[in-house]
């Protein structure tokens, strides 16, 4: 479903250019649960952002169902993120002035057309799915950190995506709450959703079916498929 080929990404910094990815190749099949691990600054979040079309690589290609993301127009990439891909961040980033229920419906608020009853019903289902149907009318400020993250997951599910990209979703949560979040992601994967998770927690990484390790901008290990030999060196 998703194929990254020789991805190179460099960020300009005060101390000069800082290479984040130095030729990473990775294929993610539909329905996989891939955990990307690595030390802080290894480039794992950059890889996730490139796979999810939020960032464009300096070199290399990301193919989604055979289509090069870089060749798509900005509008097509926006549409892709609105329909096929979903994001969950370390910080939940809920809109503080909308209720949990309204936050779940945020992806549909870019149109003049009012959100229809079917979408509203599904938003409630998504909240139920993460165990928060009874707190649908609460503002984010009235929810705990774990609950807020679960609302963010419900928001990621409401568009019925094919792939969910989660960047350290448990990073700001305590152990038991983090475990709840991982259980939800695991269950969603079992129901067929492709999940790409970035985490530095070995315990959570092991819950994924496939473990990929990034070190110093390169693919260091991949227990699903052998790490391909780097075809380019930066």
């Amino acid at each position, binding site marked *: 479903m998703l194929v990254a080929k020789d991805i190179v990404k460099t960020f300009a910094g005060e101390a000069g250019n800082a290479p984040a990815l130095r030729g990473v190749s990775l294929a993610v099949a539909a329905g996989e649960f891939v955990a990307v691990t690595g030390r802080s600054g290894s480039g794992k*979040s950059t890889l996730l*952002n490139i796979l999810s079309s*939020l*960032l*464009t690589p300096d070199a290399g290609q990301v193919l989604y169902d055979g289509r090069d993301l870089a060749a798509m127009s*900005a*509008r097509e990439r*926006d*549409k*892709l*993120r*609105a*329909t096929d891909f979903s*994001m969950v*961040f*370390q*910080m939940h*980033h809920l*809109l*503080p*002035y*909308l209720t949990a229920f*309204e936050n779940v*419906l*945020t*992806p*549909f*608020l*870019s*149109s*003049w*057309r*009012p*959100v229809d009853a079917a979408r509203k019903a599904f938003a409630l289902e998504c909240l139920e799915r993460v165990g928060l149907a009874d707190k649908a009318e609460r503002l984010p400020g009235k929810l705990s950190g774990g609950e807020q993250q679960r609302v963010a997951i419900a*928001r990621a599910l409401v*568009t019925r995506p094919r792939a969910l990209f989660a960047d350290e979703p448990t990073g700001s949560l305590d152990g038991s709450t983090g475990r709840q979040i991982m259980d939800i992601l695991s269950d969603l994967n079992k129901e067929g959703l492709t999940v790409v998770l970035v985490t530095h927690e070995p315990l959570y990484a092991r819950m994924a079916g496939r473990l990929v390790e990034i070190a110093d901008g390169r693919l260091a290990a991949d227990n699903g498929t052998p790490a391909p030999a780097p075809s380019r060196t930066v």
Partner: protein
Amino acid sequence: MNILTIPLRNLRRKLARSLLTAVVFAVGVASVTALVELSKAVGESLESKLAAYGANILVSPKTETLSVGYGGMALGDVSVDIKYFKEDETLAAIAGIHHKDRLSAVAPKFVLLARVADTPVGVIGVDFEQERQIKSHWFTEAGTLSLDSFGLLAGSEAAARLGLAPGAVVPLEGRDFTVTGVLGPTGSEDDKLLFADLHALQAAAGKINRIHFVEVAALCAGCPIEEITAQIASSLPGADVKAMQQVVKSRMMTVDFVKHLAFAVSGVILLTACVMIGLSIFSSVNERKNEIGLLRALGFSKGSVFLLMHLEALLLGATAAVIGQAAGFAASGRLMALLDLGEQAAPTFDPLQFALVFVGVAALTSLASLPPALAASRIEPSQALVML
């Protein structure tokens, strides 16, 4: 829930700041509304006051004159054909022009040359009510000024020359007219004339329904005198219609000055208000970069983000337009009372003007929010990622 939800909720969340911005903008709109209303009222008040000092359009029958000379000596012009107007047709024609609402007085005149105690004198038949509209400076020593059917008002010089005082009886064309008052000196030709009721004088002279000329006072705030003159000329093909340009120009200059001043001040106020709205939205964009980045990550297009920021500004502008216009009307009413512009001076609610100001303010707000809304739409998800 639709695209309006986010801007509305965000404005509500920051209610104090939203209200403050709207109020400041509303003050701008209120100032503009008040100034416009006031300039209209001042203009009309000046016009009506100025109109009281005389007519500005003269309507007379076309006459053909013949220059006579003999043996190299000019003997002057001789009227070949003296014409009258029919009173009813003429007044109806003037009352039927497109700009009839701008006419403050239509004063027909019938002129009779008579002899009183063997002294020649001009007697003018007037519609007293209309005449008073353009001769508000007339006064009598007795204080009261009236003209009944067979009454006579004497100009100061004419009264002195003819030895007339109130109560004196003056025979004119076989009918007796009684002097009801002697006008105080005006410094005009009126001092040398006698004034009688139009219809009584016409009847005495056996010239029922005949008039010699008409003086018209037009209020020209917002209407070109040339148009009124042309309309009267078009309604009265046999008439010679002249605008007294000097009078008109000076009146228009006064009114125009007030208007230009009001519009200049309004422009400065509105410009300041626009800058404020722009800065407010810029500040909102800077504060909400994370939120904008998140929305972009959720699939909102650049256009949607642009629209969100734009709508926020428009909502502020629309609120300010409504509050501002209401406050402006109220303020202009108070100012008119303070400036003692007269009982008739009052702000008038015009739905079309309200709609135009509303649309205008919306357009200005829209314009002011363009740069920050564009800046917001250019935030790339990757930029926001650094912050997320």
